[in-house]
Structure formats: structure tokens, C-alpha cells
């Protein structure tokens, strides 16, 4: 996979977040991921660039989807994969993140894919190990591979990212997806608008690159090319952040009527898993505008690209 600019090389040791990446890095990852997506669609087995490499999935939070996606990506490239859902192992018995990391590090893996409930968890790990660390979600901080797969999906559907109006709606405050995806879209020239209940909009979203952060979903939908709905955690709906599920759906749920306010060919996305009837109507989630299953497909392609670049596949 030749880079777009001959003088460009991917130099990162880890993928801890979108923050710190250059637009050229993102374009390079997306191009490589795109080629993997095409191979998979064409039934072509990719080159086993990670043969002899060991990838460890270290998930301190349960996430079957993301862990499987990384596992499939690594196996497709020929790596040996060990998946450790540590949520129910020795870590619960008082072993710290660092102790676990040191133990695994001694086994000389080539890449550690880590998900942790604490913001900065992946960063902390990366200071203590010798191999590449890929952040698969740290607390409410970042989830870079999700952002990259969102961008790849958008690029394939829309043919470009630059200049698009993207609306991200939901629990912005607690969403690592919102942070990473907003930053990545902004870096690639999209105009990002955030929307959600006032209690779930954090300060300083302009520093992520968002053009606005408001509470009027209908107004911001006007002219939107892409509408991305975020999952609303059930514990936020019990009256502490917003009154009720039905009130949330009334103002922030994506319905057919509401989607009609966006551009006619607007694309609907969701990082999953969805709460049907809370943030999105089933008719929309399963309808022609939705690219939600494509996002999952692109997830594997993006993770193939990231593992390829970081786990030692230097082609």
C-alpha cells in the first residue's frame, strides 16, 4: 500500500487516541483499511503480514463486539491472538492495571489491544510496556478505531469527508466515541455539530473541533449529510441527567419525520449497540439510510489496517 505522499511514513508506536494524529496518518490508515475492506468483499485472503506476531486483547470492560472485531482482524492477517476478558479474572482480585500489563509484557506480545473503564488507562499502559498499545476505548476519553471506522464508512458512502455536515446526537459528555469521532472528522475537514440534553453536553467541545454543541436537534439537522446517534446508557435516564426515556425520545430520538429535516440522502449511523425506541426508531435503524451494519464491517477493516501498521507488519 503506497502512501499518498511519497515522503510520508507512519511513525506512531501506539494508537492511543485521535489526538496526536495528523490528517495524513488518518488518510493513510483509511486507505489501507479500504484496501482490506475490498479484499474481504472480493473474497480475497489478505497477505499474512502478521504471521508469527502475537496480539493480546486485554479487555477490562466487557465488549464482545469490539473484542471479536479485533480478534477477527488479527487472525485474518495471520497473527496469533489471545483474548483476555479480564473483567472476570485476577484483576478483580486486586491486581492493578500496571501489574497485569507488566505480566503480559514479559510474555513479549507484539501488540496489546486494551479497553479500560478509566480515562487514560491505555496511556498508562503504554508507558509500562515495550509493544504497541492500541486503545480500544478508555473510560470517557477516546475510542480511536471506532472513529476511524466511522470515517471509513462515511468516505465509502459519500465519497469524501471534507465539507460534510455531520450531526452527532446523544450523551456527548460520557461518550468516548463522540470525542474521537469529532476530532477525526474535524481533522479531515468535516463540519461537526454536537447535540444532546444540556446535562449531557460537556464544556469545551470547540477544542475537539466541533462547530456547535446545542440542544435543538431539529434545528441542527437542517442540511446534515450524516446523522450519528449515540447510545444512551440506561442509568442516565432515571432522572439524574434527564427526566425519562420517553421525554428523551421526544426531543432527541431519530424518527423518520426528524430525519426528513436533514438532506434527502442523509446517512444514519450508530456505533452500537442500539437502544431501539430510545435514541433511534427501528424503521430508521433498519431503513435504507442506515449504514450501521457497514460500520461493523468497516470496523474489521480498520482494525486490520491499524494492527498491520502497529504490530510490526512493515510493508
Amino acid at each position: 500500500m503506497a502512501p499518498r505522499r511519497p515522503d510520508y511514513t507512519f511513525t506512531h508506536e501506539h494508537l492511543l487516541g485521535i489526538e496526536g494524529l495528523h490528517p495524513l496518518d488518518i488518510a493513510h490508515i483509511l486507505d489501507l483499511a479500504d484496501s482490506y475492506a475490498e479484499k474481504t468483499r472480493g473474497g480475497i485472503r489478505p497477505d499474512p503480514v502478521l504471521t508469527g506476531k502475537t496480539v493480546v486483547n486485554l479487555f477490562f470492560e466487557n465488549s464482545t463486539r469490539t473484542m471479536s472485531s479485533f480478534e477477527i482482524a488479527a487472525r485474518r492477517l495471520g497473527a496469533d491472538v489471545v483474548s483476555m476478558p479480564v473483567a472476570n479474572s485476577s484483576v478483580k482480585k486486586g491486581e492493578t492495571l500496571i501489574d497485569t500489563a507488566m505480566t503480559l509484557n514479559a510474555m513479549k506480545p507484539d501488540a496489546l489491544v486494551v479497553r479500560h473503564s478509566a480515562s487514560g488507562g491505555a496511556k498508562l499502559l503504554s508507558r509500562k510496556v515495550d509493544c504497541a498499545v492500541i486503545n480500544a476505548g478508555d473510560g470517557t476519553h477516546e475510542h480511536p478505531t471506532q472513529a476511524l471506522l466511522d470515517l471509513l464508512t462515511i468516505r465509502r458512502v459519500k465519497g469524501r469527508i471534507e465539507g460534510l455536515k455531520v450531526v452527532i446526537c446523544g450523551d456527548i459528555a460520557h461518550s468516548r466515541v463522540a470525542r474521537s469521532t469529532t476530532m477525526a472528522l474535524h481533522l479531515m475537514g468535516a463540519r461537526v455539530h454536537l447535540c444532546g440534553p444540556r446535562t449531557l453536553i460537556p464544556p469545551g467541545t470547540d477544542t475537539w473541533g466541533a462547530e456547535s454543541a446545542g440542544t435543538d436537534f431539529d434545528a441542527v439537522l437542517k442540511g446534515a449529510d450524516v446523522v450519528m446517534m449515540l447510545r444512551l446508557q440506561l442509568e442516565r435516564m432515571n432522572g439524574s441527567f434527564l427526566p425519562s426515556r420517553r421525554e428523551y425520545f421526544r426531543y432527541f430520538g431519530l424518527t423518520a419525520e426528524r430525519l426528513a429535516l436533514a438532506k434527502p440522502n442523509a446517512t444514519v449511523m450508530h456505533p452500537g449497540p442500539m437502544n431501539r425506541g430510545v435514541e433511534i426508531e427501528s424503521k430508521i435503524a433498519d431503513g435504507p439510510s442506515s449504514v450501521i451494519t457497514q460500520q461493523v464491517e468497516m470496523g474489521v477493516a480498520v482494525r486490520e489496517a491499524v494492527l498491520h501498521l502497529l504490530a510490526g507488519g512493515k510493508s
Partner: protein
Amino acid sequence: MSLQIVNARLLDPSTDLDAPGAILIEEGRIKDIREGAEATFTGVKTTLDAGGLCLAPGLIDMRVKTGEPGDEQKETLETASRAALSGGITSFVVMPDTRPVIDDVALVQFIAERARETSKARIYPAGGLTVGLTGEAMAELGLMADAGAILFTNGDIPIANAQVMKRAMAYAASRGAIVMSRPDERALTGSGVMNAGAFAARAGLSGIPADAEWIGAMRDVTLAEQTGCTLILDQVSTARTLEIATAARKRGAKVYTTAAAHSLFFNERDVGDYLTYCKVNPPFRDETTRQGLIAALKAGEIDAVVSAHDPQPPEEKRLPFGEAAFGAAGLETVLSALLNLHHDGPLTLLEAIAPVTLGPATILGLPQGRLAKDAPADMILFNPGKPWLCEREDLLSRSTNSPFDGRRLQGRVMQTFVGGERVFKR
């Protein structure tokens, strides 16, 4: 047994003295002070030439935590004392939130005795305001005060119930006891781990908003006014909190304020990439707020600066930011942090040392903290401009969780005296 220190730059905030001179010490007390570069006393057994170094009262630190009793692996009274003396602190108040909590007479006596046996610094126990610091039942404030508890506090977690707080303050006032309270509306602080705002939001960390401190302060100064209790607002982190205190003071309330030395030095950006040594409560605020705090210190609105020394071992700090313990080791960096505000800030040398000498001495009614005839000869000789690199490994505290680790600082204590006896020399 007499000692004179000559050729010193005498610094005493209580008399606004900043002049060359000599000082005579007899039987642990300051016997006489003479100004003048050539000043000496005759018939003195021992003479020490200060070589032009600053001679100031020993520092008084109103807020120190150790791990004794219960968590001696963090810090003991003895290790804290050694760290304190090397930082120029000759007197300090230890917080009651140990295991067990210092909430009865026997424990107050235990601390006082252990301090006498093991430590060369003067250590004053603070008593728990409520039994077990649970915020429910008033502790034996009168008996503890009689046994030597210098003030009463509920520690890091203030009493949530305003009625309990009001009664404790009313009772304390009737015994002439001082109450120190961390202004903090816990419901707003919640699970926050750093200053609330754009920086925290971007890092995905939950924030501690300043309004939690304002609301806490408004409650506590109101109760101080109502009960006549002497109140110390502990570790104020914003200028607006000081306004609340000043307004109450104008109405006649006996309210004092303190600030942590590290919050005058660092801002929220120092948290950087989740540096847990910078995890403290109150948190490092934004730069505008820090500048506001410095301006307030210059204006005399902060009565005392404290180290807020809170030793935490590596296992409490080598964790993801949200899970790490709050607290910073601070005994050895208070003076440098304040001198930074002299070198790079608006304070004169006297203004820089007043909040750690005269300020706390006045609040607590202690005779030390000044260069005055008959005052205890608790003093430091320091070089205000001496540069040094603060490295964790060199700190004397048993826990070295210092946010100053790796920082270049200016100003160093060279010798420390308690009761006329030299207890530290660098």
C-alpha cells in the same frame, strides 16, 4: 547555653523587618535582636556566621497528614518531622483522619506523646469534629481541647448535615475551640477527580466544579456568623471563595482562610497526560483562577498557606487517574513554592513568608512564627535564590508523591532550629 547568629538578613513579617542583623538565643528563646550588618552580642558562647543568608521564623504548617497511627507505611510522625524540618517547617498540625480517627482524648494524648518521643518539630494534633469523622455525632471537643487538640476538623470530607455542623460549631465556640472546614458541597463534587472544565471534559475525566467550594463556603461562613465560632476555611482554591469569607468578616464573623502551596504553583494543565501526582482535592484550577489566588494572597486575603501534605505510596498513585488517591507530598516544597511567587510573581520576601509564619501563628495563637524577644527560637536560615532540582528520590518524606518531582525550583533551607537547637543542616 547561648548562641548568636550574626551576619544574617533578618526577616520578620510581624514587625515588617527586612534588614541585616544578629540574633541572640538563650534557653531556647530569642533573647535579643540587633539590626546592622556588623551587629554582634558580647559574652556569647557560640557564634554562627549566617554568611548573609536569610534568617526567618520557622514555618508553621496548619495542615499535614501522616499515616500514624494506622498507615505508617505512608508516613510516621517522625518521617514527617524530618521532611518538615528540611523544608523549614518547625511546627505543624496533624489531621485527625488516621486509623483510628483522632476523635477522643486518649488519641490526642497518643499523638502528642508520640510526637514528643520521636520528632524534633513541634507537632500539634487536630481533633476530629465528629466521632469517626462520619459527620453524625459531635466528638468530645472540650475534653480534646483540654488535652491539647489545637483545632477541630472533619478532614477531607466535610460534615454534610448543616444541623450537625451548626451544633458542632456552636459547641466549639462555647469552648473557645477553632473549627477548620474544607468548603465542599459534596453532592456537586461527586466523583470528580480534577478541575471541572474543558480540559477535564476533553480528557474524559469527571470534574470538580468551583461552585461546590463556593456553596460549601457560604454555608460554613453563615454558620460561623450565627454561632460565633472561629472558622478556618481550609484550602481555598478560588478568589471568589475568599470574597465570601471577606464579606462575612466585614460583618464580624471570625473567619480565616488558607490555601495550599501547590495550588499557587500549578494549574489544571499540569495534570497533562493523567499525571496522578497532580491529583489533589481541591484540584489545580485553571490559570486565571490560579492568578486570582495569587492576587488575593498579595492583597492579604489569604491568612495562611499550608502544605496540605498528604503522603501516598506508589500503589495508591500508579493507577489510572480516576482510580488513584488524591493527595500530594508537600512538606519539602512549601517554601520554594512561595518563593516562586517572589522571584516570578508579585510578592516581596516578607509577603512570601508571612502566610507560613505570622499568619498561622496568629490564627492558632502560637508564640512562635516571629522574631520577637522571648519567642521560641524556632528559625530557619535560607538562601532565597538557590536553585535546586526537586527529585522524588531525594525527598525525606516516606512517600514521595510530589507534583514538584522533576521541577527546577529556587530557594532552599540551609539550617533549621527548634527551640534554639539546630535540628537540620543541609
